[in-house]
């Protein structure tokens, strides 16, 4: 198992290299110049050129790239072109924000999506089933930015129950954090909740038809053990498989959602950095997000092996 983990971690290095290479190249292709933004629109071409030299943006592409990698090896992600601050500091500062919202959304996804899917399967074709499947279909089909705006209109503007944006640190004020993050987390989780509810329902229906469920009933086990133990562990196998997809959706969705709710997280950081062509921040942010995704997928695969004894990693390598 340890060997497998080490192997996976080593294999993620080329992936991260490719991610940064592609993002670096893409930003070079996109028109726009951070030097103009920094120097100001009234600046003369000479002033802009001076700024460009200061930032090292006059260097050829490969020189910039190699210099970035050289710094990275020393653990230096560079500093923001516009804020002048260390990129790693900015990311670490915003990490708890994004992470706490993502965790909230993940809990909602698994809690609500899984339970709703199981209920729908157990009461197949009932009104509960119809309701769950309708809401799930809406969640999967409606774009999250539109949902977020509608939530703001309804819950913040009309009803005034929850704030329309902003962020409160959970270490300062947990209830404030919960109020501030509920709308973003729900908007972020809607798609995944729908996805998970649908997958859970169809898997549960499939599992409940299996012979081993009949065996569990023939043993005289009560319904809660038949479903909550014998069926659930089997249902979790495909569910955990889609958790990998769910996590990537959470990360990509956070760019839009954090921007809409003006939350100072990694998503809005990378989003605004792209608009301002703040190359070091974009690179650092993407590298960070990609690393998180790779690690989380590794965790998912390990859970997968724990759930299904027929899967064993680390043999025959």
């Amino acid at each position, binding site marked *: 198992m340890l060997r497998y983990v080490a192997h996976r971690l080593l294999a993620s290095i080329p992936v991260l290299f490719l991610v940064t290479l592609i993002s670096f190249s893409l930003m070079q292709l996109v028109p726009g110049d951070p030097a103009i933004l920094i120097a100001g629109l009234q600046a003369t071409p000479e002033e802009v050129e001076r700024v460009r030299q200061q930032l090292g943006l006059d260097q050829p592409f490969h020189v910039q790239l190699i210099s970035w990698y050289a710094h990275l090896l020393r653990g230096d992600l560079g500093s923001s072109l516009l804020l002048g601050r260390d990129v790693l500091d900015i990311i670490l500062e915003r990490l708890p924000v994004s992470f706490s919202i993502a965790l909230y959304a993940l809990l909602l996804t698994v809690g609500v999506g899984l339970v709703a899917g199981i209920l729908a399967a157990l009461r197949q074709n009932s009104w509960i089933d119809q309701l769950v499947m309708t809401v799930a279909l809406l969640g999967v089909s409606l774009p999250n930015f539109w949902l977020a705006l509608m939530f703001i209109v309804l819950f913040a503007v009309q009803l005034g129950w929850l704030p329309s944006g902003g962020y409160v640190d959970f270490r300062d004020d947990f209830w404030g954090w919960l109020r501030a993050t509920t709308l973003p987390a729900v908007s972020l989780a809607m798609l995944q909740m729908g996805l998970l509810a649908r997958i859970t329902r169809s898997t549960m229906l499939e599992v409940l038809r299996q012979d081993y469920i009949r065996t569990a009933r*023939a*043993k*005289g086990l009560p319904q809660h*053990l038949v479903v909550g133990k*014998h069926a659930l562990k*089997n249902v979790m196998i495909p569910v955990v498989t889609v958790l990998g997809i769910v996590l990537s959706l959470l990360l990509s969705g956070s760019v839009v959602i954090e921007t809409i709710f003006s939350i100072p997280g990694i998503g809005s950081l990378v989003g605004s950095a792209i608009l301002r062509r703040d190359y070091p921040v974009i690179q650092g942010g993407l590298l960070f997000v990609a690393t998180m995704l790779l690690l989380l997928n590794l965790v998912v695969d390990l859970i997968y092996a724990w759930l*299904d*004894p027929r899967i064993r990693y680390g043999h025959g390598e």
Partner: protein
Amino acid sequence: MSARERDPILSVRGLTTELRTESSRFHAVDAVSFDLFPGEVLGIVGESGCGKSMTALSILGLVPRPPGRIVAGEVWFEGRDLVRASERELQRVRGAKIAMIFQEPMSSLNPVFTIGEQIAETLRHHERLGRRAARERAVELLAKVGIPSPAERLDSYPHELSGGMRQRVMIAIALACNPKVLLADEPTTALDVTIQAQILDLLQRLQAELGMAVVIITHDLGIVAEFAHRVLVMYAGRVIEEGAVEAIFESPAHPYTRGLLASLPDLEGEIGRLSAIPGSVPQMGALGPGCRFAPRCGLVEPACLAADPPLARTGARAVACRRAALAAAPRERVA
């Protein structure tokens, strides 16, 4: 059988289970009645789809719903009608007093739990044993069903075991709480021939040892001849003949039973073509008013198509055929 002198342990009366499909609904089990006596082995034989498995599932209230539903009848066990018992009462009977094993050992065990857990679970649930005590009993049970080095096997997962071993585990689960009745639904059908014999020997040995009553459901008359004391022959959801094994094998009364026996390969006689019953099992959704076997019967006469003959009982024998007397004549006369 001396067992007959006592009261039956399980008494099925007029059990009728309806199956609904999108296009039709029919009685997969149609007014089935029989008694099972303590220590007795009762064979239920018939072709696939004749309702024999559905009968066993109906007894334990395990008919998948939808599409199935018990619409009539009684199943008397220990002074209680299981058809009218609550789900909680049924749960106390299942696995503890009436246990069941199935045809598919490959898929009947849960793939994500160890076999030790799957055996011990029943004991913890029904007998309120602690974790360690249940584990110890599980080892004993595995030894009892002939699994080598049972203590090590306890932590194996089903996929690490062969089909025969898995069926042994299923038997261990079924026997965990010393049930009074074992319903064995085609327990050897999915296994290799050599393994079939081993499993059958095991069941026979355990039956004798524990003195439990067994209902063995099979399409294999060889198993019935070897294992059962009494036979119930089912056709299209109905019991069409009943009697002691020797009597049925010596003088089958129903043309269908005769056909079944005639289709057995005869190892001692000359080698020729196997005789088969012409036609196939009728579409259950589209049954006429007459005898269900009439379309395939060589002895059919117009009256057979008018009404379905009732199961007529004479002593220990019962048969549902208007022409039973004729059919009882020497075998050669049946096509």
